[in-house]
């Protein structure tokens, strides 16, 4: 479904991605883990075309993403829930959700999708009229995921969805991600919570300083000595 081959990217003179290869097949949950600054978010930004790759191939269902503007990528069904939530602060919960289904083909499903995300996150229904900027961190994270789901994603890119959430909510979020996946949404998940995210992943990649250094099944990586030492403190 998504195929990245030999992706290279620099911020100005600073090269941050080196020949990154990554694949996501339909129906999978694929996790990318790695230390701070490894280049995980930058990889997602390349996929969503917020930035332009220096070189390499970036295709989704056979379409060359590297030639498309960001809004076309969303229209194809590749939807990103960015790091740091990025809620529209001066819009209500409902308006934020509405922006999630801005893309033409998704507007007709608006009501159905609103019901769906309210079902997933009942808290959002209670807070429909609240301004996004005044919500708590956890609530904003729910809203960010819900907003992403409003766009009928085929492939959902999640950048650290569990960051800053209470342990109970973290478990909740991972359950919800699994649930969304079962409903047919393919997921590419970037996480610092290595244990939880590998546990739900079909396959996973480990990134270090801009390179993919390890790949394998989720459970396989959980048992990997290097992963245990570097990320799980074992």
């Amino acid at each position: 479904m998504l195929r990245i081959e030999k992706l290279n990217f620099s911020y100005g003179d600073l090269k941050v991605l080196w020949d990154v290869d990554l694949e996501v097949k339909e129906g999978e949950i694929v996790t990318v883990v790695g230390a701070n600054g490894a280049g995980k978010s930058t990889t997602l930004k390349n996929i969503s075309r917020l930035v332009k790759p220096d070189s390499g191939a970036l295709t989704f269902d056979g379409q060359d993403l590297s030639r498309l503007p960001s809004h076309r990528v969303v229209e194809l069904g590749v939807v990103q829930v960015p790091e740091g939530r990025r809620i529209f602060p001066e819009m209500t919960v409902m308006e934020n959700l509405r922006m999630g289904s801005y893309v033409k083909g998704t507007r007709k499903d608006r009501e159905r999708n609103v019901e769906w995300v309210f079902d997933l996150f009942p808290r959002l229904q209670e807070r429909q009229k609240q301004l996004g900027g005044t919500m708590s961190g956890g609530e904003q994270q729910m809203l960010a995921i819900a907003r992403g789901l409003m766009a009928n994603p085929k492939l959902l890119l999640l950048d650290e969805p569990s960051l800053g959430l209470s342990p109970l909510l973290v478990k909740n979020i991972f359950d919800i991600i699994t649930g969304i996946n079962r409903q047919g949404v393919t997921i590419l998940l970037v996480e610092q919570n290595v244990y939880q995210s590998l546990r739900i992943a079909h396959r996973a990649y480990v990134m270090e300083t801009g390179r993919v250094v390890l790949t394998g099944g989720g459970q396989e990586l959980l048992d990997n000595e290097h992963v245990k030492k570097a990320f799980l403190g074992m």
Partner: protein
Amino acid sequence: MAVFLQSLISGILIGGVYALIGIGLTLIFGVMRVINFAHGDILMVGMYLTYILFTFAGIDPFVSVLISFPLMFIFGGFLQKVFINRVLNAVAQNQILLTIGLGLIMSNTVMLIFTSDYKIITTSYSSSTFQLGGGVSVSWPLLISFLITSAITAVLYWFLLKTDTGQAIRATAQDREAAQLMGINVKRMSIIAFGLGSALAGTAGALISPTYYIFPQVGSTFTLKAFVITVLGGMGSVVGATLGGVLIGITESMSAAYISSGWKDVVVFSLFLLVLLLKPSGLMGKSRT
């Protein structure tokens, strides 16, 4: 009391037009983070457009808004697409120089075509008034322009709050990158925002043309005024610009009545400085965090 009411009413009426000018500037700033130093010159182009339509086609200045609004929208959208979109990621100095340059080109082109002579549009109602009673009179052209302004402002609020495109413009202003992730074509939103800003400035130009002198350099006064209004209201805030415009209108007309018209700019700027001292982000501005 009559003087007070008289200047309050005149102030509100002229303030409506100021609000239109300010909303245009604040919309452009909100979406692009570019301060449009050509704003007054765009208004001036709107005045000349009205002058042309009036002189050569006999179209009433207020009716001509129906033509100048869409034309100025296209003009602004063109400026954005061809010039401003290219400097969105450039340093602020370059953006400022570009908009100042565009303004100069507009005023000089108009000067070449029309010379720097003052033009006036004389309509049958240019200086007609009606009595409100108690010694208070209201100028017809001011009242009509205020009604048109109110209608345009109301439609604009509805557009920004209720339509998908309007919400997408606000989303782009609040977080450009997040807007891109929603599938919003932010370049297109920028074109619409600059088009709207120019249409509002051009319409303001059309509305004041029955009561103002028209000359190529008239824009600079209005650029400054637009800037004061938007900073006063809070950069990027449409509600702030609306309030700021009316407030400046009232202040000008009050100080002209109670002090002297020569002093009105001094009073306006004193008020401006006072508000900024008390609330540096402007009346409706969000303090930066």
